[in-house]
């Protein structure tokens, strides 16, 4: 099975740990991994801010780059959500049947990381080891757009040595919201402050989520507060083993 990794623009440019861990994890599970080099950004920031025309070339590029793979894994709930739920809209705007066809072929093959692991590869125990106190934030688009349900938690529960603590009011938004984080920065921070407070209440040392963007927001607040909590992508925890623990540079 050939699986292509969609690094996402944020993962590529700012949080390469997440797609790198995705590559490591999938290889460990015996999957043939590819990274199409023509990929850039799925267009979500533009669509979610209302700039549909601007998203057209990005969606075109995305569908072309991921043509021909058995599956596409996206280590981001919101980017996977964008592909699955918004690309059709962009294709309509493009008015180009080639884009529409490309989108139609991509949508059923695009899986968020936990979906790929649990549904496509059929594993929940990925052989990971991560002896730390962890709390998990389920991120809105994974939860309510993709409906990944408890898949990430099922994966995390199987991790050796993990001390997984429940996050209070976990399903509440962290306040990131893409350009909302700067357009309505104050509200965004007010929401994030509450999320950070709940994270601190757990006494966790690591906050885990499936979206680098939400982690950038909550992690940025926690760092500013000197809270002593670090953020890690779900892929990093799942890629971590006793011999090759996560957190190494």
């Amino acid at each position, binding site marked *: 099975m050939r699986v292509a990794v969609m690094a996402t623009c944020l993962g590529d440019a700012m949080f390469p740990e997440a797609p790198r861990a995705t590559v490591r994890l999938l290889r460990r599970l015996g999957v043939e991994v590819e990274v199409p080099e023509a990929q850039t950004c799925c267009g979500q920031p533009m669509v979610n801010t209302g700039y549909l025309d601007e998203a057209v070339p990005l969606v075109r590029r995305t569908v072309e780059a991921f043509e021909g793979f058995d599956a596409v894994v996206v280590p981001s709930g919101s980017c996977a959500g964008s592909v699955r739920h918004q690309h059709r809209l962009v294709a309509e705007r493009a008015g180009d049947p080639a884009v529409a066809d490309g989108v139609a072929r991509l949508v059923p093959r695009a899986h968020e990381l936990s979906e790929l692991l649990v549904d496509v590869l059929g594993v929940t125990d990925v052989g990971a080891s991560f002896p730390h106190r962890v709390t998990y934030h389920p991120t809105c*688009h994974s939860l309510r757009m993709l409906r990944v349900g408890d898949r990430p938690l099922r994966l995390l529960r199987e991790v050796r040595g993990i001390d997984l603590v429940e996050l209070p009011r976990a399903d509440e938004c962290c306040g990131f919201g893409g350009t909302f984080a700067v357009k309505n920065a104050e509200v965004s921070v007010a929401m994030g402050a509450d999320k950070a407070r709940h994270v601190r209440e757990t006494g966790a040392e690591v906050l885990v989520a499936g979206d680098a963007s939400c982690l950038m927001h909550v992690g940025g607040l926690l760092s500013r507060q000197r809270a002593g909590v670090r953020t890690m992508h779900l892929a990093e925890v799942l890629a971590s083993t006793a011999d090759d623990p996560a957190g190494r540079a």
Partner: protein
Amino acid sequence: MGRTFVGMPPFPTAARTALADTRLRHNLAHATGTIRAKRATVVAEVEDWEDLRGQAAAVKDATLARLDEHLLTLEASLTARGATVHWARDAAEACAVVAEVARTHGVDEVVKVKSMATQEIGLNDALAAQGIAAWETDLAELIVQLGDDLPSHILVPAIHRGRAEVRDIFRTRMAAAGRPAPTDLTDDPAELAGAARLHLREKFLRARMAVSGANFAVAETGTLVVVESEGNGRMCLTLPEVLVSVVGLEKVVPTFADLDLFLRLLPRSSTGERMNPYTSTWSGVTPGDGPQEVHVVLLDNGRTRALADPVGRPTLRCIRCSACLNVCPVYERVGGHAYGSVYPGPIGAVLNPMLRGVGTDPVTDSLPYASTLCGACGDVCPVAIDLPGLLVHERIRVVDAHRADPRPKPEALAMRAAAWALGDARRMSLAERASGLAGRAWRGRGMPGGRRALSWLPFPGSRWTGARDLPVPPAESFRAWWRRTGRDEGTGR
């Protein structure tokens, strides 16, 4: 004249002010938290809740698809039962109808059932301008009116007020409006309700004319339905001689049987009750019983604009339950006033731009952006309106409306630039190399996890770093790593 939303700043500015109001934050967090929990409990009791939502959406959609026919049926049924039907294109026409009825009967005051449509059209101010006093009789609406305040919630317009504030308003303002509050009034909820009851009773018994809205209008029978919790609606709908109801075009349902569905969904969604205390229905005039002159004003005021948009049309399914407000994390923190409309929260962020149109008013244009698109609203909506999807739809309409602006906004330029830089892997890779080099030179404090922190950026980056650190860009992007080593099989470190 009461206060109005006119002249308020766009959402981000209004929200900033609201966030700093600690009492507001406390009142809202408490009230929305309580009602959210109640709703969740009673909704969980209904096994086929998701089915009911789907059915309700289907009934509304089918009705909206042939709204013209259903409205004509409604008009015919109402007329046959002795009601007078008026059609109002906009707020001014609707207000004029109500004022005209009042003048004909020589009344200088009316009692009002809580109604969103009459708030939407600014009826109280329009009547006041003609020397007619409109008394709100819903407890929360009374608190807002006496406090010369604005509603901040669809169901609980005074949700932003705490008990102590309500007591102060009653003590200082009730006397000027009628029967004064007892001088020893405390902030005990039962006492507050008692004071309101006595104050209002005087008005119910005196008023000759009432104004209401309607939650539903049944086309086949010409029946209007008002759902409420306090009995004030029942008083208004039965005691006065003349009754005028202002009803949005979208309130029509085809048959009496359809009510069954909506009356199951509405109370659980709005007040978190299995059933609401008072459901009043009336069909035109019943000789010798209740108002002997009944008027119905069918209100457009932008609804046909929403109807004409095939994507936006489902917004008109809304039954104004307010569940979407109560779960909205943005609403919970800023309250209703920041939205500059009687329709706040997620539904307001979609409905206002739809009713008013976009591209001309900065306040309206800011509303679809008053959301993180977290989707909590869409999940609770009893008529399954895809609110997050519609928020994006409205954003697209706002952006498109400004495409021809002679001077594009900085945001538009930034989006174009970003789309260009991200439009090609080579350009993106160059940008990453540049940011990686800049990152290497940066001597920031270490963040947990080993990255260094960017804690200060010039505007507009300061919108981020004002309260949040940002990791400095990594020395090596993912694509550079993949080129260097990742391609090779192995563990790929």
